[in-house]
């Protein structure tokens, strides 16, 4: 099979660029730990309370150390359950200091949902039977909208909360 000289140059250039690109992706993923979330931790979707993190008292924001937080969330059609405050009203807004390390843990008792802190890399699919989790540092102050970005039914666009990163 004959390949034109210019085409050879073009292909060699293109393939080399591709190899470099893939090496960078691989380096990031395997050496710097930037894999997308994939912990494979399972849970019974009909009995999520059996897992400590998803018991009513443990939902929402918990401080677990200096500058270390955990946020446990139950996503269900069409609501993010972030626990309740002292008066028993559902929490819809959480505040985290800038620079803190935050572990998000989300699961669902019903259908597939999304969990995206809009405009950040905190973007996970939430599927029945699994716990989605991602640890991150929030370094940019501001108010973020948490949106469900996977279709879950007629009220899908009404499923949200807010997260504030303060200085």
């Amino acid at each position, binding site marked *: 099979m004959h390949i034109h000289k210019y085409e050879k140059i073009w292909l060699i250039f293109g393939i080399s660029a591709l190899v470099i690109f893939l090496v960078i992706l691989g380096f990031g993923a395997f050496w710097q730990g930037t894999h997308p979330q994939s912990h494979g931790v399972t849970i019974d979707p009909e009995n999520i309370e059996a897992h400590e993190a998803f018991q009513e008292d443990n939902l929402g924001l918990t401080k677990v150390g200096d500058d270390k937080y955990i946020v446990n969330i139950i996503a269900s059609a069409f609501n993010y359950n972030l626990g309740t405050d002292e008066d028993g009203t559902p929490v819809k807004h959480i505040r985290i200091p800038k620079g803190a390390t935050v572990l998000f843990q989300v699961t669902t008792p019903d259908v597939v949902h*999304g969990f995206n802190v*809009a405009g950040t890399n905190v973007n996970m699919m939430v*599927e029945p039977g699994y716990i989605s989790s991602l640890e991150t540092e929030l370094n940019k102050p501001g108010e973020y909208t948490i949106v469900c970005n996977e279709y879950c039914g007629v*009220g899908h666009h009404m499923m*949200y909360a807010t997260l504030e990163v303060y200085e």
Partner: protein
Amino acid sequence: MGIAKLEDAKSSQSLPITKPESRLYMSFIHVAFISLLIGGLMGLLQTLVRSGKFELPWGIDYYQILTVHGVILGLVLTTYFIIGFHFALMGKTVGISEKQRKVTWLAFWVMVVGTIMTATTILLGEASVLYTFYAPLRAHPAFYIGLALVIIGSWVAGFVNWRQLYVWKKQNPGVKSPLAAFMVTINTLLWFIASLGVAAAVLIQFIPWSLGYAETINVLVSRTLFWYFGHPLVYFWLLPAYMAWYLVIPKIIGGKIFSDSLARMSFVLFLFFSIPVGFHHQLTEPGVDPTWKFIQVVLTFMVVIPSLMTAFSLFATFEITGRKKGYGGLFGWFKHLPWKDVRFLAPFIGMLAFIPGGAGGIINASHQMNAVVHNTIWVTGHFHLTVATTVILTFFGITYWLVPHLTGRKLTPQLNKLGIVQAIIWTVGMTIMSGAMHIVGLFGAPRRSSYSEYGGTEQASEWIGYQLAQAVGGTILFIGILLMIYIFVKLTFFAPKGEEEFPIAEEEEDAEPTPAFFENWKLWIAITIALILFAYTIPFVDIIQNSPPGSKPFDFPIGR
């Protein structure tokens, strides 16, 4: 060289297409254009709803029309148009027997029955599950049964294509198969192997579960089977556009095929690397092993190679043709391309759209960067560039000659001009709509979402302006659709009688012969299956072994 060479088969490249054949091919194309009109209207309504200035009447739900839009444009329009085009190419190059034609009619009607079943459930509000029908949302069983019929019908159509080539090869021993027939065979193979996945999900998982025979469904298995199909699906759309670029465009600009072997090679590579890659749609899912995600990301990027080959071939054809015609200078050949011929212009704009489209695809599939864009409206912007511009404009480009060729009419200069206007309207509308989707997607605005102010957050209020822009783009696009329907109706029923050319380019007189190994279908299939087994066996076993309890069906979220 020790490689066996194949004889050319120039004589049989151009068979006449008979009346009954035309009727068959046109039937598929009719369904495609009816779909375009209905689906386009839904698209317009979506952008209007999302602008916040408009509400759907009669209690129609946003997600119901979005399901119509996705199913009818993503699955129905594309599949029918492609099958019609495949058959036209096969009929032209290898011929079709009466019996084969009858079987194809059967395939057509099976698909139509399936389409009507699925459409009815959606219209009754019993299947607002979007075109990806993710479990455990449960649609009416007829939705899944209808989809299964569409797939089965499309298989029968594909089997006929294989039979057509087989019979031709029997009659022409040792002669290389026409390039068009080779390409159609690759694409139908790709479709068959890929759709086995979704067929398995639908037949084994969804239908028994939706009927109540199975209590639960394995959600991750169903998603994995869907995306095993979902990515090759986009190549199934794209390859017919490539057929037009490799085979038809050179003829329209008065040139020859750049290289028969390289064209075959690139199609073979697309077959290899479009299937074992579905995990790149599941990168942010919790239950798939990250190493296997990465392996499939690497395999995904292998399609860069045939894409580079295609880009080179196209521009080489443009330049060689121009220079042969005596247009010198660095860019003289480019200036003298037939810009005023819509059969060229529409697909050419499609090629250009594939540059940002492909770049966006690289971002989407990049292991980590995916998290920035996954399920944001950026993704919707991406595939409106790739499928709804690159592929669709090329299909329009094909329509301008194929339809009059089949109906015995002519593409008049006036219709040609309207076609050019159509292509420009589409470009403007899509630049606005897709551009706005891309930008606001980077800010985090979600896809598949009706209008929402998200409790009035500042971020969400910034998104609304871009949604208004999408409505402007969407309106322009819908005008483009109406114009295209008008042109289609003209070409089908009213344009003056005449003979429109079926443009298929030939090779250069002194072209290098094509190596015989290209006809070794067993080899191509074996490598394809080996790659699939490599990419999927271990992670799939892992998914099954570590499965959580299954999911019961959910009807209430979709309002059933």
